[in-house]
């Protein structure tokens, strides 16, 4: 079955709600509206208001209550309407959700998922466009997973829901409807702690995640026509990083380009760069290149400014070529 990413996520949620009674969804406007992007459309009708719950407009409340229910045997899947609005729940996520297992010496666990749409390029302005993953990629105990397409989204979401650890599952808004592919069946689950080699290559490696994976694959294909072999690695797990796969993939060419939509300084790709520098400096053949957003507070609304913000991603092809020739 060919689906776009939002429909794949919808199907994944539906299949999981059928599979396990302990699972319930909670979020703002996810009931009769079906969510801001339609991820839960029709699910309240199908499963009832007890399992697909519209919550009051309070993110700390949503995450905090979900955590409490997870401590008592439920498996909540929270939807934060836009990742930009997750910050009222920051304390619950950082101080409570991520630390629960550790602070109770494994007595309690928090099997819960927090889904949130992120990313720019949709003229969402400062507060409907942000890439917030770096803030959460510093919380041992929490997993941060970002799918790059419909099939992965469904298969990763299922694993996240079935995991006994809390997972922050970030979905790029622009990927929701722009990517279409055949998705797996109800039991297709991909590991949420492993990076995926999307394309092998021996001249250079692009490491990225989310929406940019498909872009990187396109650039790799284009450069293949020029006779270059470019690899593409999808991080999938933003935290903790799948270091083994990253290092293996990077060794092949010794040339690595890192790509992310978040602000450059303090970005998760900087951590990848640090890992490479620390572990395989002597196998690198060129300085590590990072392509990321300029260090301005967020994505501005006006199209000209938004384009300027995202311009770095348009340079991917030439930067990759430059790295190959280095």
């Amino acid at each position: 079955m060919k689906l776009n990413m939002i429909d794949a996520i919808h199907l994944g949620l539906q299949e999981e709600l059928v599979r396990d009674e302990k699972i319930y969804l909670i979020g703002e406007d996810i009931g009769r509206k079906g969510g801001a992007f339609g991820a839960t459309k029709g699910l309240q009708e199908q499963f009832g208001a007890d399992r697909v719950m519209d919550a009051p407009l309070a993110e700390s409340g949503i995450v905090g209550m979900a955590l409490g229910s997870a401590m008592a045997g439920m498996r909540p899947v929270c939807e934060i309407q836009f990742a930009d609005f997750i910050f009222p729940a920051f304390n619950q996520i950082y101080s409570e959700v991520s630390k629960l297992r550790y602070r109770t010496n494994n007595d309690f666990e928090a099997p819960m998922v927090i889904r949130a749409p992120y990313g720019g390029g949709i003229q969402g302005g400062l507060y409907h466009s942000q890439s917030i993953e770096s803030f959460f990629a510093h919380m041992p105990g929490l997993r941060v997973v970002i799918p790059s397409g419909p099939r992965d989204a469904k298969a990763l979401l299922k694993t996240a829901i079935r995991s006994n650890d809390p997972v922050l599952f970030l979905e790029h808004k622009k990927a929701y409807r722009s990517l279409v592919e055949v998705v797996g069946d109800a039991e297709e689950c991909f590991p949420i702690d492993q990076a995926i080699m999307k394309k092998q290559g021996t001249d250079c490696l692009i490491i990225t995640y989310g929406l940019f994976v498909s872009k990187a694959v396109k650039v790799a294909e284009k450069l293949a026509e020029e006779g270059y072999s470019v690899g593409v690695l999808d991080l999938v797990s933003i935290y903790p990083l799948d270091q083994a796969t990253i290092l293996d993939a990077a060794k092949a060419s010794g040339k690595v380009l890192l790509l992310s939509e978040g602000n450059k300084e303090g970005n998760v790709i900087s951590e990848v760069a640090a890992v490479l520098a620390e572990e395989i400096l002597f196998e690198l053949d060129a300085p590590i290149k990072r392509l990321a957003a300029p260090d301005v507070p967020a994505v501005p609304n006006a199209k000209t400014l938004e384009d300027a913000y995202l311009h770095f991603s348009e340079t991917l092809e030439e930067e990759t070529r430059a790295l190959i020739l280095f």
Partner: protein
Amino acid sequence: MQKTAINYEKMYELLILARKIDERFWQLNRAGEAPFVISGKGHEGFQVALAQLLNQKIDWMAPYYRDLPLVLGFGETPKSVFLNLLSKADDTNSGGRQMAFHWGNQANHILSHSSPVTTQFLHACGVALALKKQGQPGIVVTTVGDGSTSQGDFHEALNFASVFNLPVLFIIENNHIAMSVAQEDQYKQKDFSGFGQAYQIKYAKIDGTNVMSSYQDLQKIIEEMRAEPQPVLVEADVVRLTAHSSDDDGSYLNEQERNYQENKDPVTIFQQELLAQQLLSQEKMTEIEEQISDLIDEVTEEALAAADPAADTLEQFVYEEGEGK
């Protein structure tokens, strides 16, 4: 639920146990053995009563740091709280990972809480939601200090419980001070009845220093909650008979505040009532006190001698390991 006769002796035992443990904790702190003490001294009255009224098999609690009497009445043992105080390997709350007085024990239905205040209010809602979804009986009790009513999570929790009609007994332990900040600098209400009204949930104020009256008031409330699951907000008027914690000397308190507090010691009040109503004899009380003192001496030694967590467990249990729990 069938009504059982009120067990005054049991409540007196718990009260004295909590008080004497508290006193030993301070001694251990002042001798440099325990890094941190935060006390429930003055908060014990209603906690002792509440512990009798809950059913640990079906009910849950999400306590805060002043609830030593409550957790002792809800499955924690003298040994376990000493191990917690000293961050020992066998501390059932966290294996020595959290600061002392941060409770949490799944087996006893006590939720784990952190240090940022008031987050547990929402967790209590979650447990109540889970009970409701699973069709299970039981209520969830959660507590905070009065200063913590300024936190956003306090309000989100009351609203969520109201909207989803969750059987949560929210208790504000009102000692009229938050660390050093006096009540009038924290909020302008005379009491918290306004919150009951705002969130459309039942509100009651009780004298939390009085075991007897607390018992009666809470009994009524809990019976109602069991009959018809719903949230209730209780304001328990209590006193803080110590400084905020062992890292504080309370030197900022004025004369009036000190006198007020010292006149309302739950232990003295309960003793006087028990004697006046001839519910427990002076001899019995003395006997209980002596037994408990001996017990505490014994447990102190055991706990001091217990093993510390091994350094190589530092990285354990960040994520699920092996076959899981």
